[in-house]
């Protein structure tokens, strides 16, 4: 099951050229771009691992693309996303984030039902991938 988080996730995967253009758009708006990766795709897992520092003073998208290439070499079997952070006063938050790399096989989520007091049912989801320990989940 395809994970849909962040922008553009209902579209086909972006090509590198498209990623470059999106990143350049972010930089031109003076947002700091950075890369993050994870192998825990649960939607509530907001804090992904950082790949290097956010790039506050690189005027060109090629810099991020270089890092992305490196990151894919190491964590090509995990989810990688581009995060664009707006540091301007009053915002100080992420303005755009989108997935730029995903595992070849995405097993999806298990829907778990818990029968509670009375006839109440509590629902929760759990990624199938999370059965395995971190670092061995994909590939």
């Amino acid at each position, binding site marked *: 099951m395809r994970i849909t988080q962040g922008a553009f996730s209902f579209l086909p995967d972006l090509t590198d050229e498209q990623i470059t253009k999106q990143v350049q758009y972010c930089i031109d708006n003076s947002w700091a771009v950075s890369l993050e990766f994870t192998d825990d795709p649960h939607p509530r897992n907001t804090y992904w691992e950082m790949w290097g520092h956010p*790039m506050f003073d690189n005027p060109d998208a*090629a810099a991020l693309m270089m890092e992305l290439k490196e990151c894919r070499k190491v964590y090509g079997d995990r989810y990688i996303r581009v995060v664009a952070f707006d540091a301007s006063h009053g915002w100080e938050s992420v303005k755009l984030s989108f997935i730029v790399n995903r595992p070849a096989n995405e097993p999806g989520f298990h829907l778990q039902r818990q029968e509670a007091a009375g006839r109440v049912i509590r629902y929760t989801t759990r990624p199938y991938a999370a059965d395995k320990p971190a670092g061995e989940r994909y590939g």
Partner: protein
Amino acid sequence: MAEAAVKELEDGGDIPAAIDLRAEYAESGVKDVLEELDRELIGLKPVKQRIRETAALLLVERARRRLGLAHETPTLHMSFSGNPGTGKTTVALRMADLLHRLGYIRKGHLVSVTRDDLVGQYIGHTAPKTKEILKKAMGGVLFIDEAYYLYRQENERDYGQEAIEILLQVMENQRDDLVVILAGYADKMEKFFTSNPGFRSRIAHHIDFPDYTDDELLQIAEIMLSKQNYHFDEKARAVMADYIATRRRQPHFANARSIRNALDRARLRQANRLFETAPGPVDAEALSTIGAEDLRVSRVFSKAKEEQAS
């Protein structure tokens, strides 16, 4: 109508049948950059010539690309060699502007670094540091001043080697993303290239910066002063010409930079003189005139006299 449409198809859609290089030259803004270069930089004939040739090549290459002819992004990495104060950094700035206008780099900014910015202090510190700089320079020009300090022959475990390797890799693989300009004194650069053949083969343009002649330096001095709203009086100009000739024979002569320093000191003396000797209120003319006495007390002259005496 129909005929016209057919003709357009035969031409292959957007591909123009011919490109007017002259118009292209004016439109792309290259003309402005080159004219500015001519106007604002004194002397440096061979440098200007080389830049003009490079610009012509790039312009033709661009025209070829637009006509759909086979083209390959030319290697644009350069090396500037010349004595201190001959305008290497200034020309690098113009070069960045030129390449930007021709569309060979996307942003046209110049990141100027030396060894300290690239090489780290302990193991594992160099690679991230170098990469950080490279990332900053992407889309523009990376100007490495005194590049030969990256390589220390006497110490084979020097971290400079690591920076060199990363640089070479990026220079080769990301030619579209940034242009590297190495700069430094001619003899040391030569040695550097001999011990790092990888650099020589990746650099297409070697540009030599000649020393300025005495006349050129005098012109430069006058331009520098006029930019700050100062000027020489008649006598002072003659003394300055004398100063330049004398200073050149002394050690650590750094062309335009020496002149700038001399002028800074002259301004200091002028201020002091006005402060101590002015009988009453001073006017703008007095405040902006550098007199012969402000230059003549320079150490350069006393030193020259000592040498003559001994």
